[in-house]
């Protein structure tokens, strides 16, 4: 229970105006940290941003990951190479790719603006990606999708290998087209994995951290702060571990409820389907 003890300890800390060093008094303040968090505008801005990030990344990541997994599951030239190429973003360190993406989304002469203006001619003005809230969240989400697609792909590939070929053949005999086969054979066949991926992606989205810290550090004016960057700032920059812990438990309860709903809605159907 290497996480259990620290967890309980953090829970305890969240009821204190906790002093970092044990030699100084930590004052018990009950639920004050929780009440403060619920009324903290910045915390809720962070929650909204995390929700936006979730909506921008999770459906896209899962869909793209599943799409390419389906394509790469079947035999094709250079399949092994492609699988590796899709996996490379997953294995590159978050710190390095976050700084890399910050560089790509640079306003003047950044690679993304070059691609949009000079290559696709979608716009003539450079977009100040990281200088404003919503475009910055899009940039951070782009990194999130790019980094996680390969992860989904790998899990789905493993899951697809367990779907029995006979089922596809049977469906094909029944005259089902590719989309129908996908919907009626593939999806039920990998439902458990799909749930697993969804739950973990949602947890991951609420826990988005290094990319935001390094690309915008929550700015400008705190508008792109997410729960973890704000907690980190409170705990490690401002040494308010009590407050940071309280927020992390509010976030955890939130995630727990959402995960529970996911199990409820996606998990139940598993029994119905099989």
């Amino acid at each position: 229970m290497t996480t259990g003890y620290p967890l309980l300890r953090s829970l305890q800390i969240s009821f204190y105006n906790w002093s970092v060093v044990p030699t100084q008094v930590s004052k018990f303040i009950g639920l004050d940290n929780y009440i403060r968090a619920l009324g903290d505008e910045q915390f809720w801005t962070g929650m909204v941003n995390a929700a936006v990030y979730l909506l921008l990344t999770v459906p896209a990541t899962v869909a793209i990951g599943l799409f390419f997994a389906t394509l790469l599951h079947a035999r094709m030239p250079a399949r092994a190479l492609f699988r590796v190429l899709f996996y490379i973003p997953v294995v590159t360190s978050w710190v390095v790719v976050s700084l890399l993406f910050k560089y790509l989304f640079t306003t003047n002469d950044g690679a993304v603006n070059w691609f949009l203006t000079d290559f696709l001619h979608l716009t003539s003005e450079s977009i100040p990606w990281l200088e404003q809230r919503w475009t910055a969240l899009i940039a951070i989400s782009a990194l999130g999708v790019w980094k996680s697609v390969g992860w989904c792909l790998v899990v789905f590939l493993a899951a697809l290998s367990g779907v029995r070929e006979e089922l596809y053949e049977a469906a094909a005999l029944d005259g089902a087209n590719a989309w129908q086969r996908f919907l009626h054979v593939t999806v039920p066949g990998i439902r458990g994995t799909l749930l697993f991926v969804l739950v973990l992606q949602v947890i991951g989205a609420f826990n988005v951290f290094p990319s935001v810290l390094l690309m915008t550090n929550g700015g400008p004016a705190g508008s792109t702060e997410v729960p973890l960057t704000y907690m980190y700032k409170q705990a490690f920059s401002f040494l308010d571990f009590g407050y940071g812990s309280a927020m992390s438990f509010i976030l955890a309860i939130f995630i727990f409820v959402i995960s529970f709903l996911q199990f409820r809605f996606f998990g139940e159907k598993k029994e119905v389907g099989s």
Partner: protein
Amino acid sequence: MRAHPGWAVVRFIVVAVGAVFMIAPFLIMISTSLEPNTSILPSPPHFFPQEVTLDNYVRAITENNFGGYFLNSLFVSVATTVATVAISAMTAFAFARFDFRFKNVVFSLLLAGLMIPGIVIIVPQFILAKNLGMVDSLWGLVFFYTAGQIAFTTFLLRAFFERVPHELDEAMTVDGAGIVRKFVGLYIPLARPALATAAVFSFLGGWDEYVWALTVITDPLKRTLPLGIAAFQGAHTTAWGLVFAASVVAVLPVVIVYVAGQKHFIAGIAAGAVK
């Protein structure tokens, strides 16, 4: 399966375009790692180096005990992978095939562990590690990494074990097979793709982890690779070519592990076909 004649070509092009997007940022990284004077990143970025030098790679590998960090990371990742996959396979098997009291409670607890942001509990966790004598120790890293990954890996494997057809399980029971024989003779072989996936992620988790290693490792001789790479970043200036070169080298072992894992994905398909 009936395949449209052009379908294979379309599919190939779509996958290739996707792969280009996946790899483009990485190309910039490689390109920068091959250029001199990279404390100022060029804008616009270079997809291909304008002046090629291997200097960054030579420096990354020869300076600051890179080889030692590499071996440390290899040890930690391999040990973590073995421990995590072995333990998780058993726990996942238990969750998938047995009913026991508080099963759902235990499983929810396991999942809850994944939901609490790790960053805030790092201080109590560090104090625990210190009391357990696991600070500045590679075994300590293995212990905490394994503990941290079991929940995720169990969750991953459970979905696969649950899919093993009950008929096969029952057939083995009729043959008089005990739990151990079923686990080793039926579940493990059928879940090979999943176990390979778990191993690939577990290895990556140990290989990539930074924050915890930063917290518990102080002795320069015990640094893992991410710590070694971070050490290349200066207070005011960072030679990006050096950081990127080190990162490119660091990616290689994980790719090798992944390629090795792939063989088992395919083996898994074969196993499925036998059924």
